[in-house]
């Protein structure tokens, strides 16, 4: 490997030896592509003409108008996931792979991988926790419509963590012809670095749009954090600015319950899925099952760069409960006519609190995905008369 793969003391390459050459090949392909103008041009073309970039920056009209929404929900595929999936798809082609595998939680990354599989002609298999298959039926069908095979994973808590385990096992046997298209800034090097670079377009655009629309930078940037890819993508171009960076974790049924996904707030450093990072775990180091109403935030680890941003103090991490997120989901629908993903509603929930405390502060909120996938669940939770 050419790079250390570390963010402070976090990150690294903690995988079985058999997978190290595949990660080395990926790092080399990524670094070569970063220096290749043709790669950049093809990716930019796909992002613009296929995926619909740039995405708008929308100022709220009826919610506090200090809140600006970066509209990744309007991206093709329904979430920010499409940005980096197109890039990894091109890399997979560059490496001569014929097959893609991926994990998915809410199904958004699975949908994104399925669409790139269809677009670029890969055989595609998606691993998805059996519990998530049940609560995200619509996304399962979307993936299947685009030709992907969805494999329910029945081990452990039957969630995102278990889907990643299964994808890593598949890859241990299949790396010769298969690319593991990991969906977030977690996992072994080079994934956290590579996925960040492919997602930083979110913050790059948003920063320029804030300056164009308001003539200045926001006071705070707020994004939800599961694995953390939309947050890292939004934060990265603001790291050197005098701007608060706030990641919102899933507080589930309460930070003091055992049912949450607040890894940075309630976990401790450990090693999971290839990286040294914060992990929800018991005394012995067995990984705990996380919980969130949003499958995409239901993950007991987090990208290692977030662990570093927490320890360095550059970013702050807070929680929003299931109920707070549902409240924000409803408020955005009623006031702005936007149905956002439950994941993104966590970020909005915290922004609404901040707007209440400091009415003059300008807040940039990552609206990472759209809520179509969550409508059936919202109907159950809020009642059809909501």
């Amino acid at each position: 490997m050419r790079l250390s793969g570390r963010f402070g003391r976090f990150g690294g390459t903690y995988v079985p030896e058999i997978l190290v050459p595949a990660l080395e090949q990926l790092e080399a392909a990524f670094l070569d592509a970063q220096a290749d103008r043709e790669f950049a041009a093809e990716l930019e073309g796909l992002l613009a003409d296929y995926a619909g970039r740039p995405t708008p920056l929308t100022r709220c009209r009826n919610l506090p108008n200090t809140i600006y929404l970066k509209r990744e929900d309007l991206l093709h595929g329904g979430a920010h996931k499409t940005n980096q999936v197109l890039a990894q798809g091109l890399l997979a082609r560059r490496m001569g792979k014929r097959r893609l595998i991926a994990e998915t939680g809410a199904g958004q990354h699975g949908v994104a991988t399925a669409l790139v599989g269809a677009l670029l002609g890969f055989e595609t298999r998606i691993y998805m926790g059996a519990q998530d298959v049940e609560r995200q039926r619509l996304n399962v069908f979307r993936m299947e419509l685009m030709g992907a095979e969805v494999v329910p994973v029945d081990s452990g808590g039957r969630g995102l963590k278990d889907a990643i385990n299964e994808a890593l096992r598949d890859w241990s046997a299949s790396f010769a012809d298969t690319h593991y298209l990991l969906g977030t800034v977690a996992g072994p090097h080079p994934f956290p670095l590579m996925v960040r670079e492919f997602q930083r377009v979110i913050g790059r655009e948003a920063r320029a749009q804030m300056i164009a629309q308001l003539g200045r930078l926001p006071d705070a940037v707020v994004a939800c954090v599961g694995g953390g890819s939309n947050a890292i993508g939004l934060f990265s171009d603001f790291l050197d600015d005098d701007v608060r960076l706030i990641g919102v974790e899933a507080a589930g049924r309460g930070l003091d319950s055992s049912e949450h996904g607040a890894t940075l707030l309630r976990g401790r450093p450990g090693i999971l899925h290839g990286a040294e990072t914060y992990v929800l775990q018991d005394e012995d180091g067995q990984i705990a099952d996380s919980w969130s109403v949003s499958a995409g935030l239901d993950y007991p680890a987090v990208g290692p760069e977030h662990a570093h941003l927490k320890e360095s103090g550059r970013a702050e991490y807070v929680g929003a409960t299931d109920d707070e997120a549902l409240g924000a989901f409803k408020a955005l629908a009623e006031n702005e006519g936007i149905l956002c993903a439950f994941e993104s509603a966590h970020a909005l929930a915290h922004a609404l609190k901040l707007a209440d405390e400091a009415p003059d502060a300008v807040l940039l909120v990552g609206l990472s995905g759209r809520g179509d996938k969550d409508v059936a669940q919202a109907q159950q939770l809020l009642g059809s008369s909501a």
Partner: protein
Amino acid sequence: MSRYAAMFDRLAGEGAFGAFLVLGDPDLETSAALLETVVAGGADMVELGIPFSDPVADGPVIQAAAARALGAGVKVADCFALIAAFRARHPHFPVGILTYANLVVTRGRDFFGRAAKAGADSLLVADVPAREAQPWASEMRAAGLAPVLIAASNTPPQTLATIARLSVGYTYCVTRAGITGVHAAAEFDRDLIDALREAGAAPPVFGFGISTPEHVAAAMAAGASGVISGSAIVSLAAQGGDIASFVATLKQATGNDSRPR
């Protein structure tokens, strides 16, 4: 002389047969009895898995075994107690631990000291490859544990050199791509064995998918110093099969040694 070195000396060219079991599977009492059974069946060494909730290097059989142990409430401390009790009964028998990184780092790395105190000879951490292994290996050696590393057919020469430098006791060779479990073809990579011997590595032992006497014989014919069988034993034990005769059958095949003496 280390227990591994003494074992390889005693075997004098005959292959070592290692039996892998998951500690606490399906419960502590049965697990302790199984350990005695594999010794009675003729195993030369044991490799003992400390169960982890997310074993990414393992196939369905070992995953299920770990889930049974954890489901029975088995803690890391119980595993060390099983090892200590085994050590008290078998002062000279080589005992290795196989586990995953999070169990080791979770509480300030006192895992190494606890493992050595229980009487383990070696530790293999399945998700710590050579690239990350240097500080781990140093701490293990300081604690009196032999670090065991994995070498695979796709491991490049410079990494094999690192493995040869760091791995003590034996070198765990992976026969094929993939996770632990049943092996379809009895093909073993002689080039990997030759490269490791060339690099001066600790004795190469094949693992992953060793389930028949033919596998054992083929591994020995490829020049290995021994084999470790895991999933086949764990699966048979879960079905209530005759572990002692199964181990005896596999052990017998380690004598089919075609290596130049």
